[in-house]
């Protein structure tokens, strides 16, 4: 693996529940009478799935009713199918949920990738630009549906150093910050601005992460 090679997320398990039990739905905080069907997905890269779940809301009549990262990340997962995140989509019928899961998987396969920050792939990061937010991340970020956003995640020190670089590189503003420690001990931020500004910010972020990862201890 070389620097800036994509790290493609692996979908580990998926299931569709055509008609979810109402009490279980209520436990997840959604109305099982209205949203009958649920789609479950686990993936070995949490931020990739958060972005892909958001993408799904643009392709099908589904809502993200649950999405949480697991502690310590996929290298320390509880099982081969656990990965580091469980996402749950819910919709009014199984067909919609299947379409939503399909869009989610497509996004993971083609777009929502991590990247390697050094030559051996021992440091990875997520410099993801979303040109148009879906219903899920717009809610999480407090932005309007359709707005562009840079979803920038990296290892702890890199994240701070690189988010600063990103904010200085373009007309973007910090929307939400995720300081370490987190469940997976990655950290980062949501930035927004024009699409071009988000792209420039993501590039600056990536360059800064790579800079640290390839030369962690810089003599002063």
């Amino acid at each position, binding site marked *: 693996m070389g620097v800036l090679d994509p790290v493609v997320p692996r979908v580990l398990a998926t299931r569709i529940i055509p008609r979810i039990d109402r009490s279980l739905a209520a436990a997840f905080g959604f109305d099982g009478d209205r949203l009958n069907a649920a789609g479950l997905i686990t993936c070995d890269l949490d931020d990739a799935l958060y972005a892909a779940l958001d993408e799904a809301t643009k392709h099908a009549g589904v809502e993200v009713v649950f999405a949480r990262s697991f502690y310590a990340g996929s290298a320390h997962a509880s099982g081969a199918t656990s990965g580091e995140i469980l996402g749950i989509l819910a919709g009014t019928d199984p067909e919609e949920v299947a379409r939503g899961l399909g869009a989610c998987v497509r996004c993971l396969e083609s777009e929502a990738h991590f990247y390697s920050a050094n030559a051996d792939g021992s440091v990875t990061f997520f*410099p993801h*630009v979303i040109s148009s937010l879906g219903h899920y991340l717009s809610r999480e970020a407090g932005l309007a549906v359709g707005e562009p956003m840079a979803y920038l995640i990296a290892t702890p020190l890199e994240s701070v150093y690189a988010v600063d670089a990103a904010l200085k590189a373009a007309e973007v503003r910090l929307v939400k910050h995720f300081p370490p420690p987190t469940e997976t001990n990655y950290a980062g931020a949501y930035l927004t601005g024009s699409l071009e500004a988000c792209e420039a910010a993501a590039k600056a972020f990536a*360059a800064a992460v790579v800079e640290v990862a390839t030369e962690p201890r810089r003599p002063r």
Partner: protein
Amino acid sequence: MSTRRLMQELRQAASRHHVAAAPAPRPASSAKPARGASELERPRPRPASDPALLEKLKASTPAKIGVGRAGLRYRTQTLLQFQTDFAVAKAAVESQVPEGWAEEHGLLPIQTEAVDAEQFLVRPDLGRRLPEEALRLVRERCERSPDVQIVVADGLSATAVMQHAPSMIASLAESLAVHGRRLGTGVFVRHGRSKVIDLVGEAVGARVGVILIGERPGLGTGDGMSAYLVWDPRPERTDAEKQAISNIHRRGLSPEEAGRHAARVIEAIFAQQTSGVKLDLRGLPAPQGRASEPKPRVNQAHAEPLLGCGQSHGQSCPQCREGKPGRTCGRSEGRPCQASASA
């Protein structure tokens, strides 16, 4: 521009400068490829494990089972069948027993406190009450203290009682005669509900009351009739004290068999001097099943004349063209039936 292109640009720029070695061609993910999107979306075919059994089940009921679907919706054929069945149900509710029908069948006609069909539908309480003049008429004209008092009420399907009540009464009378039971003067109650049997039964002092009433139509049955049997009819009798014989129609319990079965139940009522939930019918043979062969599906469900003209004809009914030789349909002769009136 996708993030992937952005990173590609960055990588190319980096390789031109000092950062790291030129990257190798991107290795394919070493893991087994993720389950493809198309695989998830493809609807999984779920063939019936036993198609012959499914066909048998489908043939056993007019209910719409195993009808399939088109996307998320019913198929056109199913939708049309729903609309047809609903129209039949509505027509049955709106059907009326014509003037003169009761007299033709030897019944004394009276009416509840509901002044017309519309009020009967919106004021169910009025359908339970009989005006004093109606009760006076019953006391004057009906035989007093009979063993069994029969009342026919239109209920929610006049079609049903017109089609089935005469045959059931004939069969019931024949069976009761065998046991030497004295049958009272039959009464027809317009806009009546099952409660009126208690009022009429008390007025004549009957030991057992029987009411034949048009059932609330469902999808697939607009012509179902029920019989409720009650020991010592009095206004304070509850529904729990009434014995029901339901689904009397040509595709369910035939009116003739229903009459014979009702006679057996009446004998049990006399023997135990109670009716309804307290009545023990365990010694009784079950009624003899279906009226006819299992009914065919789809559109033939109502091939029989639901809205016919109320009489048996030696030939096709001149009024409605619905009547078939030897069958009874829903209206008296000389009067246009709904089918021909709306045609």
